[in-house]
């Protein structure tokens, strides 16, 4: 099983992602509604992969990732950003932040699990 930490401020999107990921039976999912609450639970949960929304109140996805990376146990966990369709330059900027993938919103709930597993591959190999 893969432990996934999902941080997303919109509760409907959280629920859809949860349903979508539960279909594949390979994830243990922990969801947080913003950066500060993710910082509180991340170390204890010890995720194998991070799925982060980009635009969130209090703390943006990239800001959250920077903070999470300061934790020794989280410094190498693969991170995936999820964001509304981005231009190439923005996508590149997110990848430069150390993400392994950027998933565009609206995401396809049917393929979400596979996309995450695919993105994790180079990091886990």
């Amino acid at each position, binding site marked *: 099983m893969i432990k996934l930490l999902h941080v997303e401020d919109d509760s409907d999107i959280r629920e859809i992602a949860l349903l979508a990921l539960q279909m594949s039976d390979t994830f243990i999912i922990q969801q947080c509604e913003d950066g500060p609450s993710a910082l509180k639970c991340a170390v204890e949960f010890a995720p194998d992969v991070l799925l982060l929304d980009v635009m969130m109140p209090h703390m943006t996805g990239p800001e959250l990732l920077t903070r999470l990376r300061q934790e020794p146990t989280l410094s190498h966990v693969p991170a995936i950003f999820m964001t509304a369709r981005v*231009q190439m330059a923005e996508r590149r900027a997110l990848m430069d932040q150390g993400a392994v993938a950027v998933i565009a919103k*609206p995401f396809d709930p049917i393929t979400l699990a596979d996309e995450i597993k695919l993105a994790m591959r180079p990091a886990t190999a």
Partner: protein
Amino acid sequence: MQTTPNDYAIIRPSDADGGYENSRSDLWLLSALPDPIVAFDPDAAMIVHANAAACRLFGWNDAAQRPLADLVLDTGADTLLNDLRRASVLRRETHVTTKGQLFSVESQRCGSDVARSMIVTIWRGGPSQTTLTPQGDDFVATVSHELRTPLTSVKGALGLALSGAAGPITDKTRSLLDIAHRNVGRLMLLVNDILDLEKMSSGHMAFDMNRADLRDTVAFACEANSTFADEFGVTLDCQIPSEPAMVIFDADRMHQVMTNLISNACKFSHPDGTVRVKLDRKADGAFEISVTDHGIGIPSKAVSSVFDRFNQAGSVHRNRSGSTGLGLAIVKTIIEEHGGTIALSSIEGVGTTVTVAIAPDKADCINRTSKV
């Protein structure tokens, strides 16, 4: 008002061959304006004129013939340089800060002869207008986020329900969910298109211009759209020359252009039709991409308005969903941003050809500018 000889000296025709020769009164007028004005020669990547206010702002005592690097900005330099680099006739606005002051910079190409034209920028804001905020970027980003978030949930929820993830559904329910799912997809396209247009017309669309082979983009677009063509029973005939077609362009945006032209040609073709996509080089050296179909064509009175927003030329789509009537308006904007031209010719009942012409990568001046 009195003028002193100094006023004339501050801006002076810099070009020895008199390319930008101005009359004395024009020069006086420019230097008397309170807003900084800076003129650039985009080909030489040089600043060719600056009025008195601009000289004061940047601390220059002589404005003639400076490298672009002398334009020291705190923020916004990339976007502004991008604007200057683009051979566009469009007027655009960018926000920059320099010396801790925020400016709204309006750039416009002047002169009808592209070879001798320059880009004039007017800088508004500065110390007196502290309320000015760079809203453009924020606005598009905010609207895009606010619209896409609920759409993401709606589309996701419908997709999951349709997949049976939430339990079995009856055929009747399925067909209703199908309709909703299809239409939310259409709404999404519309939102994307409107935001694209907004970004482009406000100058906030960053173009990622690189020197590359146009053949790759055209071939890739044909490949990527072959499934779409199949759905309409249309065959794509992609004709690519053997010689490289080196151009400075944004590959993603050009792909968007090709996708729209090819999808239009397929949508309005008859089943079993052929759409020809052809790249070749014209006598004047420009590269020309044409997309030709033998479909329903466009009534002659409607041809002139096909590039307008939300125009659907009164034609009957074979697949109405997934159409916004914004495609060609976006295509035209993108091509003009590349300094190219686009034309459409059509005969009702016979077919349509759309032709895009793009100048080759003739000067390395663009690369020089981008290094500043």
